[in-house]
């Protein structure tokens, strides 16, 4: 997928100027946290499960080479073909090879952020294959020529009217109303059913890989992933090396947090574990199964201070609770992953230079860390990335100068206090009539959007010193 994170600020401005879309984001921002909270409130083991899962994930990542090798051994014993890909290009060409070996023309694809990351669909289409996304949200954005705006709900940026018009335009089904959402869902079901039945290859992602038995876990509500996994004669599972868990019970324990955090449900409608191609006793299922395991920088992340981001469950809770995501929406982030997790992951998977704006898209409110079921210190990681931007000189020179000047001053407390005292006095003086200032010197960008309230009193340190002086005097009397 083409990356546009370097124009984050412009993307954000465009998104915020679209009033109707902003209203839809406001509605989502209001109700998604409520749904999650209700679900967590009804699950009294949330906190201990979170701690348990953290230990399991850390243990697995500490011994990833061991568990990945164990998964591979078991998956091969189950009759799968296991492939490794270092880069997105390697994954794409591996999958294309598989499709071409089977002279496939039609591909039914389930939701997979990994294949969004590698741009697989575009690559297969370039080779003349017809690839249809079958998750309803993914189908909508694919047909609209857009990209997902949310890792869980890819089309939540679109209104029902948008979808209605889209379906009327693209499905040659004659006169019809599509009045209700259920009519649109029924139409997509009808259209996609034919595709499922005709596809020669199914492509899905995996939410977890189980080392002890070589199964891949797939979680969906629609059942589209399972149709992709069961109907076409060839199945390709694309996922990343960090999805391994030691035991099957770890995967179901993880689901308790993942599903509640993502959609507020206690359990998704379909949770399936697939071991490989059809067995002698099977009446259906793929004849051949390939598992493609992508690295794409993850082994480097594993060896860095950002290892914790590999514990991400892809639940989307940090997006739903992030004031920046809520304001600017997912497309502003300019790549596959959005919100706080995207602002950490995108620079690590692509380059900090290309995505320098993302770690700064943070108010440091800490809500993301608070709601993250994997307990990932997202604000600290974002802060570290900002610090790296500074040391790698990616931060604009003006900012760097400001930060350096502040650091210099902060190391000279006396000078700092007297200068800040003068500045506060000056601001009080300038803002005394209205109680606020329209423009701030050296912070034109900040005050272009809001007024600065004039300080009401002296600086904190001055007030503290005054208080201490008064108390001393009282004691002396």
């Amino acid at each position, binding site marked *: 997928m083409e990356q546009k994170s370097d124009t984050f600020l412009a993307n954000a401005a465009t998104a915020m100027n679209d009033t109707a879309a902003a209203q839809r984001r406001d509605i989502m921002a209001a109700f998604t946290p409520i749904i999650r909270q209700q679900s967590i409130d009804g699950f009294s083991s949330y906190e201990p499960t979170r701690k348990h899962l953290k230990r*399991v994930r850390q243990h697995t990542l500490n011994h990833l080479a061991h568990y990945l090798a164990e998964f591979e051994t078991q998956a091969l014993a189950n009759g799968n073909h296991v492939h490794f890909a270092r880069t997105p290009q390697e994954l794409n060409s591996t999958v294309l090879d598989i499709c071409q070996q089977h002279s496939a023309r039609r591909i039914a694809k389930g939701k997979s952020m990994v294949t969004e990351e590698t741009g697989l669909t575009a690559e297969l289409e370039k080779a003349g294959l017809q690839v249809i996304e079958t998750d309803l949200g993914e189908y909508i954005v694919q047909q609209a020529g857009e990209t997902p705006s949310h890792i869980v709900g890819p089309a939540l940026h679109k209104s029902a009217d948008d979808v209605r018009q889209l379906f009327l335009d693209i499905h040659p089904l004659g006169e019809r109303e599509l009045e209700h959402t259920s009519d649109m869902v029924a139409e997509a079901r009808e259209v996609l059913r034919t595709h499922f039945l005709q596809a020669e290859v199914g492509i899905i992602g995996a939410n977890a890989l189980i080392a002890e038995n070589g199964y891949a876990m797939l979680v969906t509500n629609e059942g589209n992933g399972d149709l992709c996994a069961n109907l076409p004669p060839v199945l390709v599972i694309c996922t990343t090396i960090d999805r391994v868990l030691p035991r099957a019970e*770890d995967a179901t324990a993880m689901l308790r947090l993942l599903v509640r955090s993502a959609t507020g449900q206690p359990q998704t409608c379909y949770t399936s574990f697939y071991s490989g191609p059809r067995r002698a006793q099977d009446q259906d299922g793929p004849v051949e199964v390939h598992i493609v395991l992508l690295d794409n920088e993850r082994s480097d992340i594993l060896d860095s201070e950002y290892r914790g981001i590999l514990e991400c469950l892809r639940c989307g809770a940090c997006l739903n609770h992030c004031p920046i995501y809520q304001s600017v929406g997912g497309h502003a982030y300019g790549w596959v992953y959005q919100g706080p997790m995207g602002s950490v992951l995108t620079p690590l998977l692509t380059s900090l230079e290309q995505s320098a704006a993302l770690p700064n898209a943070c108010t440091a409110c800490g809500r993301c860390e608070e709601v993250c079921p994997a307990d990932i210190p997202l604000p600290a990681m974002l802060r570290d990335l900002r610090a790296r931007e500074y040391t790698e000189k990616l931060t604009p020179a003006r900012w760097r100068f400001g930060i350096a000047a502040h650091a210099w001053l902060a190391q000279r407390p006396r000078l700092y206090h007297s200068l800040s005292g003068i500045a506060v006095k000056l601001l009080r003086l300038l803002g005394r009539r209205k109680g606020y200032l329209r423009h701030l010197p050296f912070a034109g960008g900040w005050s272009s959007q809001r007024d600065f309230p004039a300080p009401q009193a002296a600086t904190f340190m001055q007030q503290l010193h005054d208080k201490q002086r008064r108390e001393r005097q009282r004691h002396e009397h």
Partner: protein
Amino acid sequence: MSTEARSAIFARLQTASAEATANDILRESWALGHAPYPPLPCENTEQAFLTNVLSNRGTVDHAQDRSAAVKAIGRYLYTHYRTQRFVAGNDPRLAAMPWRDAGLLPRFGTVEVGEPLTVGFARLGVAELGATVSWTGKGNPSANNLLAEHHITLVDSADIVATSEDAWPRIQADMERIGRPRGINFVAGPSSTADIEGQLVCGAHGPRAWHVIVIGKLPKDALANALATTADK
């Protein structure tokens, strides 16, 4: 390419992984223990199962024995489709059901496009999840879970367990007996989507309705209580 990629990836992972022998790792993983016990909506496992199936937008019924189950299926088929026909997997437990008691006409095998009703026999019910669990195979072609409009699942009350931690050893025991099945499917509701404006619609790609019939002994009033609890919500 893949072999080369594999070696390169494993070489990177080895450097990034902690140094430990397989035994150390095993010991460490044992020390992780199990996930904390998840809360159930009530003490009774069967009632908790029924309650959670209902909260997952499934519908439920109870039958004392196989003959009553057949009649319950008959009622469901009549109410929804005015039919006696449906498709069932080649599960010996389904084959042994007294279908004639309700004048039903099952076709055993894999569902074909356009056939609206399937009946399956789950291997387990998991109360914590409100889910039934079955494995793919002759007795349960995966298409039967996915392609029908209405999917009816039978489960023996003795096969209802409290949590997924209780389910895995049972699944494991079966695997030792019959080998690893191709698919282990936890179903917890009719297929659904909220991809358009967050509005929930049932019947996205799979069945629009999911009906669970528990066969065998249930604690007194378990079904009535489960229905009452969910009606309150």
